């Protein structure tokens, strides 16, 4: 499904990704962990096609197609979905209108008929229930004034509506309380399917208590420094990043924060 080979990317002339290699097959769930600033979001954004980042070398294919030469919208239509770490607030565009436009763009691309307002409303209500978002959120501006947790659930809602082939979830677990984490995890588990690849970016182990990954990778300073099975996440939980030779002050500080918050 997704194949990343020796991917280098930079932003404003500074190299962030320094040779990423990763293979994700349909049906697999991969977790990428790593300290703050290691390049996790950069990887996610590059895969989604954010041209604020320059790919300087390497290759990315999705089911054999060169992903990097495609526009963002074309990647999305090919089935790439990114749940943003920081979902964007767009006042003036209603969440409902946004999601319907997105779903209909995909349907149009597949040669299917568009959903009318009533049909979509029905679907949107069902899915919003699945992520425990009050349907009133559909009427608000996209992410406008949503709490952190509501934004994350709104991202999962979009993933459920769009049914991507590859779902990249960038810290969809951060800033959530236990209940919200459970809702998000249920959503992600609902996305699990033999036809779909999932790339979960997280820097806490706790999401992995709910969603058991097939593979865990550790990203540090723009490189994957270690890969393993789910036990790697548990090991990181116990031992931190230090034993891998990674500076993890940021992570320690963050974990401390998150512990004190709960």
């Amino acid at each position, binding site marked *: 499904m997704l194949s990343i080979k020796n991917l280098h990317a930079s932003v404003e002339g500074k190299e962030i990704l320094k040779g990423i290699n990763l293979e994700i097959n349909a049906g697999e769930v991969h977790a990428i962990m790593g300290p703050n600033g290691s390049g996790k979001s950069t990887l996610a954004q590059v895969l*989604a*096609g*954010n041209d*604020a980042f320059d790919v300087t070398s390497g290759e990315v294919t999705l089911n054999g197609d060169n992903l990097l030469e495609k*526009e*963002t*919208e074309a*990647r*999305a*239509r090919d089935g790439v*979905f*990114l749940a*943003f770490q920081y*979902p*964007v607030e*767009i*006042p*003036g*565009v209603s969440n409902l*209108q*946004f999601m319907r*436009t*997105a779903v209909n*763009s*995909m349907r149009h*691309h597949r040669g299917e008929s568009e959903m009318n307002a009533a049909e979509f409303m029905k679907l949107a209500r069902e899915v919003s229930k699945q992520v425990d978002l009050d349907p009133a959120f559909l009427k608000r*501006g*996209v992410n406008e004034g949503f709490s952190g947790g509501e934004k994350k659930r709104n991202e999962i809602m*979009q993933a459920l509506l*769009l049914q991507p082939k590859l779902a990249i979830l960038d810290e969809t677990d951060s800033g959530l309380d236990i209940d919200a984490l459970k809702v998000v995890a249920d959503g992600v588990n609902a996305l699990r399917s033999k036809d779909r690849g999932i790339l979960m970016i997280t820097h806490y182990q706790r999401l992995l208590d709910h969603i058991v990954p097939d593979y865990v990778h550790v990203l540090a300073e723009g490189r994957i420094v270690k890969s393993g099975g789910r036990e790697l996440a548990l090991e990181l939980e116990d031992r931190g990043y230090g034993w891998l030779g990674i500076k993890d002050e940021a992570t320690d500080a963050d974990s401390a924060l998150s512990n004190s918050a709960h």
Partner: protein
Amino acid sequence: MKPAPTLSTAFLHPAGQALPEPLLALRKQRGAALVDMPLPTRKTENWKYSSKYLKLTDEMASSLPINGKAGSALAVPGYKVVFINGMVIPEACEYPDLNNILIQRFGDLSDAEASELAERLDSTLDKKAVQLAGLNSARFEDGLVIRLKPDAVLDQPLFIIHEVTAGHSGSAFPRIFVDAGRNSKITLVEEYISSGQEAVMVNTVTEFNLAEGANVTNIRLSMDGENVQHIGATGVLQQRSSRFESHCVGFGGPLRRHDLQVRLEGEGAECKLNGVVVTQGTQHYDNHTTIEHVAPHCDSEETYRNIAADKSHAVFNGRIHIHQDAQKSNANMNNKNLLLNTGAEIDTKPELEIYADDVKCAHGATIGQLDEESLFYLVSRGISRREANVLLTMAFINELVAQIPVDAVKDTVQTHLNQFFDQTFQEA
């Protein structure tokens, strides 16, 4: 030093004579004032961005021939008055049949009525600031007086369709005078449309007098043709506890200029002024608004949005003047501007003059472009770039379009916006 240019003498010849004597006399007197009126140049502060587009040539001075066929105007449902080339076309009109609302053509007024009207014409406008309203006063050949007696309520909007048939060069000078009696209520829609391709000018003046407690909503839709210079003025005088609401929606042209002047003269009066301007190509649009807080305890709220594409140019100048006695005034002005291309230009200038000490006055103006992060978020969901641009541009004006209180107008606006989007945002 070069003397300031003055009006082409062609404009000083008398216009059509089919009006009651007192109005002809008024016109003549206003005409005399035009003789040495200096024309706006780029050194004229309130015309500095627009004077170069102003073309008051001899050709513009001739009145457009009256062509009695009302075209697209006929499709409008409900009460309507149709002006073609500045003249009312009675057979195309549908007046409300209410004895407390009088709608008369200038030509149908008795001498006594005309003389009373002549006394009051131009009284809502600051003539120094709205120089070219004087041209209308000197050259109108027809007009409409709308009188609402106390407590009169018009149950449906009244559409005034101004059409110019631009088969020849020339000008139209339509004129409207509204006298809204105590506690009366009306929604008046002015639509400016054109057929034909010749270069013409539409020079309009619309005046509103609101007596105590009157409630007037004015929607002004400027959709003139691509070769039309539109120079319009709206003057509003508000007495105690009256309410004036305006929705000005305009699409660009070679020159579009609208001066809107509101005087809050009676305590507790309030006005709400909304404006949306959309320009493209090499179009030019200039809105100048003035709100005079003369009496205490008045509220004004003004919200204008400009969207400029290609190499077009939009101007917003919003003046709020709070007089010394206007304590407890509450004035809010907000202007946001969206540049869709780097070649487009928008100039915005809030002007506040506050002479009272106990007032609340807030203003803000911003100029920006579509937000890249928002665009990326939308296209990352498979939405086309074109659609994403449309969504974000609509988001910029949604709120104002939604507030237009007449659905038929809202639909017309949306249709025009969609045409604009089709031309501005090409499919990749």
